[in-house]
Every structure is written in C-alpha cells, then in structure tokens.
C-alpha cells in the first residue's frame, strides 16, 4: 500500500463503518459492533505502521497530499492531511484508547436496545476526532470540530428517553456552539489579516514577517481562537456542560468526555501555538489555572462516581491549558497523553462498577467492592495513583513537568497547581475509600461480580499503558516538534508534588477510610452545599440567559405578533375595511338621502365661496 494512502484509510475507515451500519446493519447488533470495532482496530494498526515507518525520518513536506475542497475567490480550503510527530502521536492515542473502549463497549452495551445506533455514532466520532488530529488548515479543523460536537450530542443523548439525557445533550451542543462562535470569528480574523487559513502557510508567514500579526489584533485573534478550546475542552466559563455529559453511556464518557474529544481543545492550541502573543498566553494560563482549581473544589463534594471523575477531568484539562499558557505545549501534550490513558481507565473502571451494581452510581451506596471486583479495583487504583502523580507512574512525570513549568514562570499559578494537586489526591482517595475499601453501605454489593473478559482486558491494556507511558520517551518526541519548555527547578516541583499527595491522602484517610456518610456537610453545611451545587454556575447562567437572549426572543415574538403582523398589517387591513364600511354607509340607495347630502354640499360650498 502506498504510504500516502495510509492516513486516508485511517481517517475514512470509521466513517465507512458508520455509513454501512446506518444503511445496512441496523437490525444486526453483532455485525454492527464487529464492523465498528474492526474499523477502529484497523485504524490503530495502520497508525502503528505509519508511526514505525515515519518515526526515524524527519518529515520533509508533511502535507504532500492535498485535495481541493472549496476554492472560491481568495479563499482556498483544501482537504489536507498534516503529518508530523504531533499528529502521529495523537493518532496513536486516539485510535489506541479508542480501540480499547470500542471493545469494552461490546461488553458494556450488549443488552442495550440500540447497539447499532451506538456503534454507528461511536464510529462517526472516531472519524471526526481523527479529522481534527489530521487537519491541515483552520476550516478543515472547524469542520471536524463541529462534527465531534455532533457525535458527542448523539452519544450523550443515546438514552434520549430520559429527560436528563435529552437536556444534557442539548446543553453540551449549545455550550460548544458558543465557543465555536468565537473560534469562527478568530478564523475569519486570522484569514483577513494574514490571508491564509493553512497552518503551514501561516507559520511560514509569521516566521518571515513577525510584524504581520502584532498587538491588539493578534491578541484578539488568539483569544477568539482560544474560545473554541474553552468550549470543547470545557474550560471556565464554559465548563458547565461536561459534568452533565455524564448522562451518556460510561464508555462514551471514557472516550469522548475524558480521553479524546475534550483534549481536542488542547491539541488545537498546540497546533497553532505560533499564533499566540504573550498577552494571550497569560490569559490562557489563568483560565486554565482557574478551571483546575474550581473543578477540583467541586469534585470534593460530588457523590456520583462518574461526576467525580468528570470534575477531575475538568481539573486536569485546566492543567493542560495552563501548561500551554505558560509556554509549554510539549508538557501539555505529554499530560494529555498520559491523562488519556489513566482517565479512560478510571472511567472504564467506574463503568465496570456501575455494570456490576446494575446502574448504581452513588458512591455512598457502594463500599467493599475491592474483594468483589479485584481486577477493576487494582486497575482503578493504578490509575488513581497515576492521576495523583505518584512515581513511577506516567502521571507523575507529566504532572511534574507542569508543576516545574509553573514554578519557573508564574509562582501564583504554581501555588494554585500545587493546591489542586492536594485536592486531586483528596477527592480521588475519598472515592477509593468510600467505594472500594470502606465498609459496604448497601445490599447491592453482595450480588456484584467481576465484569466479563471483554471488559476487563481493556482495563488491563490501559493499566499497562498507564505504567509504561512515562518511560518510552513520549515527552521527548513532543519536545522535538513543539520545543522544549523552560522548566523551573524540578526537584522543588517534585517535593511539592509528593507532599501534596501525602497531605491529600492523609486527609482523605482521616475523613473517609471508615466513613458511612460524608462528614463534611455536617461540619460545614454552607461550604458543602456551595461545592455540591458547583458554585451555582448553572443557576447563574440560566438567569443570564433568561434575562438576555430569552427576553429578547420574547420581545421579538411579541413585536412580531402584535406590532408587525398585528398593528401594521392587520391595521392597514382594518383601516381599509373601515373606510369601506364608512363609504358603504353613505351608499344607502335612498334618493332622499342623496338629495339631502347634495343640498347640504351645495349650501356648504355657497357658504365658503360667498363668505
């Protein structure tokens, strides 16, 4: 097979699978699942082939294969494929984690009513996500950006009959659209200033003439493009959709709302890192830091196992965005990669628990699952330790890079990051103690049993990746293409990181090791309810929307109904009819009336003339 054709196969196989499922195998669940899994596994295999073939070489001209998609006037939108170390590694992550989750899904979803729809949407998602990874220009990226939004919408709404799921998918799509609005404007601004939308051309233009994009316009363009990331990667203030997205099936949460799609924002920032001015980067870093902190605080008082993980995802995404803002895209990508492994693992572990407990998600109704679900427990623990940054797991290395980066660049953000690390350990071990090792809190546990092999093997696969990912030189590969960031003192960062872990662990152990109910609400009910209600962001936004867009819509509707269609149109019609009626009164057909009117007229006329 021609090398140039490989990326196209990787990209289009999942789309082909989605199309075939949608058109032909709707009724055959097994065939649908098999098609979808085969497509993603083949894509993974081809990605590995491509990676091995190209890893030694420096890629001379990565965009050798361009298709003209839309050339009109002075706008040239090609359908290209951008292959460099960045997209190659991201391909591996997406297809690798994707394969594990597709296989896991077969076990998790096999009793579902709509397996075919599920797998078709999942394949559509893979296609869209791979499209983002391989995109060579802004418009192409925007296209796939929208398509992942669609597939996320379809998958969150998989159980659309539940009102909560139906609302959640709508919310996710709309919140993303708000971010995309900024993204689109950013693309327009970049295009009109620099005359191109092609990543390579833009980079060359800026390299040749750094003055082409300077000052306020450059910062504005960068921040508008960042809006896309704020929506897709659920950064503050558009973070509200991600926790609700947990209404989707758990494998979906693992793949889309933890490992891949939400990371797309970070990937995009790294892809166009050359566009950002120092001012823009400062804003980006703070947004990331704020998100990391807020989300970690919210996670402390959640009781739904998936929501805890969702807030944890938000918080970690905040870390990555902060890393980009601090000038370390390589570290951000490194953390993105390791996070993809262990967060997918955490979600799949949670899915295994939920599956065993017949869809129980409240951690206060679990407990004592360690003995019942050994594989799930041990893999979950590995992932938890990685998330908390315990050596020698992969999370330790990537998190340390971010802490060291912050230490060197911005002490305030370093303090935030270190505090978030404490919180991370605290809420994760709260989860582990309450759900797995603490006393059983309901009967459900007694009937629980370990998930089938089709679900546990992906857990083990991801656990292995979580362990080894710190040692196989991923960080160096990213540094090759994105540049080595300027780190602060690593040793200090490590000391802070490990102390954070120990403090968090100790606090969690003290409060939750044997708890039957949560002690925090009893101690401080106001703090607990503030955290549990996520700082009332949802309520605040609902108010804002009700006061602005909804109020405008009501006003417009009223105006349309009563003024334009009512007064103006019906008024004109009414006036015509009224005149007609008045004139009809005059036309009585009675000769005497006419004579009377005639004589009156003559009298009036004479009076006026002769006066």
């Amino acid at each position, binding site marked *: 097979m021609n090398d140039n054709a490989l990326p196209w196969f990787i990209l289009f196989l999942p789309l082909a699978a989605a199309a075939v499922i949608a058109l032909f195998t709707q009724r055959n669940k097994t065939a649908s699942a098999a098609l979808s899994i085969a497509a993603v596994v083949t894509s993974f295999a081809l990605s590995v082939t491509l990676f091995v073939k190209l890893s030694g070489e420096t890629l001379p001209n990565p965009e050798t294969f361009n298709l003209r998609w839309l050339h009109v006037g002075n706008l040239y939108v090609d359908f290209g494929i951008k292959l460099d170390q960045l997209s190659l590694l991201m391909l591996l992550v997406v297809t690798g984690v994707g394969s594990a989750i597709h296989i896991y899904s077969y076990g998790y979803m096999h009793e579902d009513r709509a397996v075919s729809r599920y797998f078709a949407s999942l394949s559509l998602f893979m296609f869209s996500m791979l499209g983002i990874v391989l995109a060579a220009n802004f418009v192409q990226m925007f296209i796939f950006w929208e398509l992942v939004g669609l597939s996320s919408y379809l998958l969150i709404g998989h159980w659309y009959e539940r009102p909560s799921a139906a609302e959640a998918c709508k919310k996710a799509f709309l919140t993303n659209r708000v971010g995309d609005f900024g993204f689109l404007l950013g693309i327009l601004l970049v295009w009109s200033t620099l005359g191109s939308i092609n990543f390579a051309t833009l980079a060359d233009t800026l390299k040749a003439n750094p003055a082409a994009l300077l000052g306020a316009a450059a910062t504005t363009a960068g921040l508008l493009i960042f809006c896309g990331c704020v929506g897709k990667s659920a950064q503050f203030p558009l973070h509200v959709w991600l926790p609700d997205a947990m209404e989707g099936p758990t494998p979906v949460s693992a793949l889309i709302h933890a490992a891949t799609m939400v990371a797309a924002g970070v990937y995009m920032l790294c892809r166009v890192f050359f566009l950002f001015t120092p001012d823009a980067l400062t804003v980006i870093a703070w947004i990331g830091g704020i998100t990391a902190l807020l989300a970690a605080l919210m996670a402390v008082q959640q009781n739904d196992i998936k929501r805890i993980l969702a807030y944890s995802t938000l918080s970690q995404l905040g870390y990555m965005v902060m890393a980009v803002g601090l000038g370390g895209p390589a570290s951000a990508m490194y953390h993105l990669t390791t996070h993809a492994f262990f967060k997918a693992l955490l979600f799949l572990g949670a899915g295994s628990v939920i599956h065993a407990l017949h869809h129980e998600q409240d951690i206060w109704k679990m407990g004592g699952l360690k003995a019942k679900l050994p594989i799930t427990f041990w893999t979950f623990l590995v992932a938890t330790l990685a998330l908390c940054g315990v050596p020698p797991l992969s999370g330790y290395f990537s998190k340390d890079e971010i802490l060291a980066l912050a230490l060197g660049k911005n002490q305030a953000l370093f303090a935030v990051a270190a505090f978030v690390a404490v919180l991370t350990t605290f809420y994760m071990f709260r989860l582990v103690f309450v759900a797995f090792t603490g006393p059983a809190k309901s009967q459900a546990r007694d009937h629980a049993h370990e998930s089938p092999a089709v679900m546990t093997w992906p857990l083990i696969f991801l656990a292995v990746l979580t362990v080894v990912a710190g040692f196989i030189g991923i960080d160096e590969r990213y540094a090759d293409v994105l540049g080595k960031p300027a780190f602060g003192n690593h040793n200090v960062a490590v000391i802070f990181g490990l102390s954070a872990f120990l403090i968090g662990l100790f606090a969690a152990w003290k409060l939750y090791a044997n708890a039957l109910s949560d002690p925090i609400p009893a101690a401080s009910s106001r703090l607990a309810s503030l955290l549990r209600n996520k700082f009332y962001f949802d309520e605040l936004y609902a108010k804002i929307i009700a006061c602005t867009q909804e109020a405008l819509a009501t006003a417009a*509707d009223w105006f349309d109904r009563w003024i334009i269609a009512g007064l103006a149109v019906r008024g004109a019609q009414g006036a015509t009819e009224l005149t007609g009626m008045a004139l009809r009164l005059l036309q009585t057909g009675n000769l005497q009336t006419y004579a009377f009117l005639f004589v009156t007229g003559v009298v009036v006329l004479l009076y006026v003339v002769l006066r």
Partner: protein
Amino acid sequence: MSLLTHILGWPLLAALVLAFVPRNFRFLTRLVALAATFTSAALAVVMFVKFDTDAATDFQFVQILPWVKSLGISYHVGVDGLNVGLVLMGALVSFAACCCAWEIKEREKEFYILLLVMTGGILGAFASLDVFFLYFFHELALVPAFIMIGVWGRGEEKDYATFKITLYLSLGALLALIGLLALYLQMPEDKRTFDLVAMTAHFRAQGMDGSAQQFIFPLLLFGFGILVSLWPFHTWAPLAYGAAPTATAMLHAGVLKKFGLYGLIRIALPMMPEGAAMWMNCLALLCLGNILYCGLVAMKQKDLNLLIGNSSVAHMGFVFLGIASLNVLGITGAVLVMIAHGLLAALSFALSGYLYQQTKTLEMEKLGGLLRQMPFFGAALVMAAMAGCGLPGFANFAGEALIFFGAWTEFRVVTVIAAWGALVIGAVYMLRAVRSVLHGPLPQEWHVAKDVTTPWRRLPFALLLGALLLFGFFPALLTRKIEPVVKQIVKDARAVLKPAITAGVKN
C-alpha cells in the same frame, strides 16, 4: 428541442393531459404527475452532468423562439453556472413534492393539475432568459400556490393566511413588475427588447443613468425582497407555510421563494451596479432583521411548522448578507445557500407534513419521544435540524461559511451578529424542536404514530437528504459553476463601486 424545454415542458404537458383524465382514475392521476415530475428531475440531472463547467459563463442548452417581435418578446431559455444548480434543485424538489402529495384525498385531480402547473412555472422562471417570460412563469407558479393554500390548506388561520400571502406576494410582484418595465423603458427605443441577455449586454456596455438606477434598484430590491420575505415584510411566510398543504409548502418555501433572490442576482446587480452599491449597506442591516430577529422569533414558536417557517425566513437573511457583501465569496455563497436551503426547506416541510398526518397536531408541547416510535422519520428530522443549524457535511455549511468569509471583509459587526445567529440561535431552536418532538418519554397517545416504512414513502426524504449531503461533501460541484458567473457580476459592480468609495458613499 432543448433539454431545458423538456424539463419545464413535461409538467405543463402533464397538467394538460390530466385535465382530460376522469376524476375517479385516481391512480392514473398520480401516475401521470409522478412520471412527469420524475422525467423533469431525471433530465435535470442529465443536464447538470452534461453542463460544461469550463464554459460556465456561457449559456448552454439554449432555445430561442421569437414570439412578439414588435415588443421584443421571445421564448428564450438557457442555463449558465448561476441557474443550472437552481433548475436542478427545483426539479428534484418538484419530484419530491409530488411524492409527498399522497396526503391529499379530496379533489385530487385539481390538486395535481395545480401542482404540475406550479412546477412548470417554477422551472420556467429559473430557466427563462427573457424578462417577460421570467415574470410570466413566476406568476404562473404563484397563482396555483394561493389556490392550493386556500382550498387544501389546514388549520383555523387558513383563510387569513391565503389572504395575507396573496396580498403580500402580489404587492411584491407588482413592485418588481414596475421595476422591470422601467428597465425595459431605459433601453433606447430602437433597441428595446425583453431579452435578458441583450439587456444585460446593453447596460453593461452603455451603463444606465445614475438617477434611473437610484429609482429602479429599490423597486426591484423591495419587490423581489417581499417575495423572499425580507424583514420587515416577512410575516406572511410562517403563517402561509403553516397553513399550506405539504407539497405546496415544499415547492414554495424551497424553490419559488428563491426566485426573488435569483432576480436580484440575475437582473438587478448586473444591470444597475451603482444602484446596488448604494443600497447594499441598507440590505446588510435589513438582513439582520431576518437572521437575528426572525431567529429569536423562531425560538419562541410552539408549533413545529411555524418554527420551520420562521427559521426559513431567518435563513434568507444569510443569502441577503451574501448578496450585500458584493464580492465573489459572498454571492457565490448566497447562490449555494439558495440551493441548499431549497433542498432543506422542502425536506423540513415534507417531514412536518408527514408528522401532521400521523399526529394531527404539530404543537411541540403535545409531542415527544417519537424517535422510538419513528426511527427513520426521527433520523431524517435530526439531520434536517443539523443541516438547519449549519453543520458541516450538509450543503448549507459550505454556503454559509462562504458568506461569512465574504461578508467579514465588508461588514464586520453585521457578520459577528450573523455568526451568532447561525451558530447559537439557529442551534437553540433546532435542538429545541428535536428535544420536544423526538426526545423524552413517549406519550401513550402517540403509540399509533407510524414510521415511514415503504421505500416509496422514503424516497422523497432520501432524495433530498442525499442531495444535501452530496453538495455538502462536494460543494465544488456547484461553486465551480457559480463562481465564474459571479466573478463577472462582481467585476462590473466593483468597477463602479471604487469611485463610490472615494466619493465617500461607502466607508
């Protein structure tokens, strides 16, 4: 005879044939109508494929038959890159509309005759290169629409809707007629002709007096504008589409409504570039009325048909914005959206019409959970909603994107607001519709609703969706034909626009 004459002739011929078919031969009636529209659609596809893209600025498949020589009226049809896609879209929608007319149970024969006349009129209007016939065919299509809404319409407001659409559109057509006659009179006496090609060539070479342009351009702008539901002359549209029988709504909202836009691009812009330059700022502001205001109104609708109607009015705003930007990107995008929206509006009304047959109500609060009961219908509705909020993969996205790129360089603030309208407001009302019709629990009473099961019933939906996806994946199929023609128009307009800029008319 030219292929085009066949395309617009078969439906008209079939209407004539149907007049002689006894009214109880119901199957035969349908068969004749379907066969005629199918022939049109198939021939239109052939024409589209055979169309020589490299010579897109030349008129192809031309036929000229002189009629009234003293007035310079002749039957002259032909397509260039601008209208070849519109004729194809019109023919496809006509066939789909005919497929969806099975819901009509009373006075079928008359209905099909009117439908076929409307089809012939529509295709004629887009194919004509003679101003007289252009107008004549448009009226030929318009009058049956009024009758169909009045006689076969539904709902309590049917009579008022008929009354309103008739008044509005007659007014619009009248204004346009005055404008067209004024154009005719602007020609020197010895050269007077209704031939569009000759008129354009004349005005392109000689130019038209600036004061005349000042007077005639707004006549055409608002005359054609009313036909396209330009804000604030839009209130007829949602009401009429809500009351119209499915096939009529499909044909009118999908195809006939685009006539006004086509007229602006084909007649007003090339003949009166100065007038255009003068009025485009005004149009850019008015289009916000469509995009923003009607989008907001759509958010508040409780009836699915009114929602679709308002959204279709809102979509017209994007086309106006594209035209107002007066550059290659904007106008090419505008024509692309005209085609895409034609397919989409027809699809949306076909879906809502089908739903009405099943549930006898389109009030969204009463519906819900129907995706479970009607998976095919539901999937099609979700796709239509997604196309409606500009999702890539459907032709609308390519068109709207081009319009944004085109408008961005001309009207920045307007573009920002329009992008909000497209990305956020559009998504709000479309997803609301999906949420309340398809998602949530299924009420007991709708267990009777049946999905679209037979291939015949699925055909119109599949056809329209397929076309939307095809042009969405390969928009260059259309843009490569449209762009050369638009380039010519823009070049002329810009030539006069440049002095206007220095004179400070446009800043």
